[in-house]
């Protein structure tokens, strides 16, 4: 850390603006919401004045609520896994290619981010419908003989979320793979490693730190995403964010909505801390 000692600046002071903005726009609001979770529900839109843990006890003792948490994490893991499997070859290609189309392809990767999530999901709904384009294409290719339920269920949420987060994963992985000296891979191949072995024994372990970073960002965004589960799940899929939205927007149970939000937040933070520790230990 002393590497930048030459410039005698009190770096800590530069953090003051960010602390101010985040406290005002995030820290204090979340804190007051967390406080809400510790009081009883006193009717629509009213938080009571009795300090209690009853909201947390309700959450922890009801298999239904715990099930939502489990489903949320299942969604996170599925999306992260698909993003990795699909994103890795693309990231590897982008990191290693010398094609002059690389810039264009890079742009195509982030292009979906330029379209509002609302529009993207609107685009998916008819594409994935029973009589939609994708089902038509699958049947024309002879891959299936009857329409597959691609939307209005868990699968639809997975497709939409994967689509939204794949660009993040690809960008992250491309950065990491680029930092791996290509000669290291050549050395492995030269020593007899097949492409698969080269991947599993050399490239993958070396991209691990970045992969963990990408995992975290995709995972946390997935478990907290709202628009896509709401639009592509056909309101059949309940994840923590849609449940929180329902409690706060429709049931107007601020106390319990806050409780669920705090639980989600706490678990996400705990996971991040664990993963960061793990990757620090690994390197």
């Amino acid at each position, binding site marked *: 850390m002393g590497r930048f000692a030459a410039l005698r600046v009190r770096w800590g002071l530069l953090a003051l603006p960010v602390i101010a903005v985040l406290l005002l726009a995030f820290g204090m609001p979340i804190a007051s919401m967390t406080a809400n979770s510790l009081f009883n529900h006193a009717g*629509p*839109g009213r938080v009571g004045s009795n300090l209690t843990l009853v909201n947390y006890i309700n959450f922890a003792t009801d298999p*239904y609520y715990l099930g939502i948490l489990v489903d949320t994490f299942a969604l996170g893991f599925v999306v992260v896994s698909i993003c990795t499997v699909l994103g890795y070859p693309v990231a590897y290609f982008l990191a290693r290619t010398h094609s002059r189309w690389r810039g264009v392809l890079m742009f195509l990767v982030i292009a979906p981010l330029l379209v509002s999530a609302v529009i993207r999901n609107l685009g998916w*709904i*008819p594409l994935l*419908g*029973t*009589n*939609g384009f994708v089902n038509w294409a699958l049947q024309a290719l002879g891959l299936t003989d009857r329409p597959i*339920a691609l*939307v*209005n269920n868990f699968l639809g949420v997975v497709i939409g979320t994967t689509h939204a987060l794949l660009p993040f994963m690809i960008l992250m992985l491309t950065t990491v793979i680029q930092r791996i000296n290509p000669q290291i891979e050549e050395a492995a191949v030269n020593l007899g490693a097949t492409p698969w072995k080269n991947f599993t024994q050399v490239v993958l372990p070396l991209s691990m730190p970045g992969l963990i970073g990408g995992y975290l960002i995709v995972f946390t965004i997935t478990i907290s995403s709202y628009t896509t589960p*709401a639009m592509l799940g*056909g*309101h*059949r899929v*309940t994840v923590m964010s849609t*449940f929180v939205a*329902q409690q*706060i*927007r*429709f*049931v*107007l*149970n601020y106390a319990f909505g806050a409780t669920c939000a705090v639980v989600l937040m706490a678990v996400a933070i705990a996971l991040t801390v664990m993963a960061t520790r793990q990757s620090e230990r690994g390197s």
Partner: protein
Amino acid sequence: MKRLLLAAAGLLSLTLATTAGAQQVTLRVACYGGLFTESQQKFGGSLFSTRTGIKIEWIDGNPEDHLAKLIASRGRAAPFDIVYLEESNQARAAEAGMLMKLDPKVVTNLAHLYPQAQNREGYGPAMLFWSVGISYNAKVFAEQGIPEPKSWLDLWHPKLERRFAFPDIAQGTATDLIIGTARALGGNERNTDAAFDKLGQAKPLYFYTSSSDLRAKFRAGDVWAAVWNNGRSWGMIDEGFPLKFVYPTEGGHGKLSTIDVVTGTKHPKEAMMFINQVLDPLTQLGQANQIPYGPTNKLLAPVLAAYPDLAQKFPASPEALEKLYVPDVKAVNDNYSKWVDQWNRKVKK
């Protein structure tokens, strides 16, 4: 002659005064959005602005979100001056003290509304009537040999599995589905356990929140039937789509859309003037012609009688309204959070 001149001068100065004074006044109106906001502006807002010089700004959103905002703001600084709600959210907003009672001297059109449209406690009235029933694709039903739906329970027909849509619990229409099912099974608003068991066995394609999305699914052939409202159904029928909108034998549901002044507004009088405009026969007729929801101003009855093609699309008279079942809003609100919970656990899966 002198008196006439004086009166004219007084009227002129009054007009000038309102116009000059109104330069600063902008009313923020929370409405439903899209085509509905467009027609409210076209037939109400622009007329109102021309007459009074008061500017209208539309804030679009679901009634549920408007209510959430109202409740969250708790009257500190009103997020908007006027709000379009549904009967059930109106009751909740009123209970929370977020709505103002109207002054019949300003909202003179209140006197011309059907009694069903009046609010007993003096809050905003219903600005239109609409109804909930079953919409289905008659062409596909005939091809597939599915009998025309007569009861709410006919949506459970095996051939309709994954081919029909239910409203999501976030939609006001979902409460009609719950109550309708309960009544078909011998229950009512306060006795819905059997209905939830039955709803839990249903296999809908999905639960919709957006009417536009449902429309598209009807068009694409993904959805063959849905519990839907009259206005949007007739919109499709008028386009030539082979849709039919029917009331089940247990009775279609009558529904009210309300308009209110928000507590804490800086311009209560102007807001009430605007509501008066919305209740104006001209505005109501324009609205009914654009999206077929029923006017609540009884002065329009003779006009509608002259246009039966239009009048058939909505409850156009108290008699028509009386044929519909109007659920007890208090029971709905009392049970709402319990229903959401049961819906989550039993229906949504």
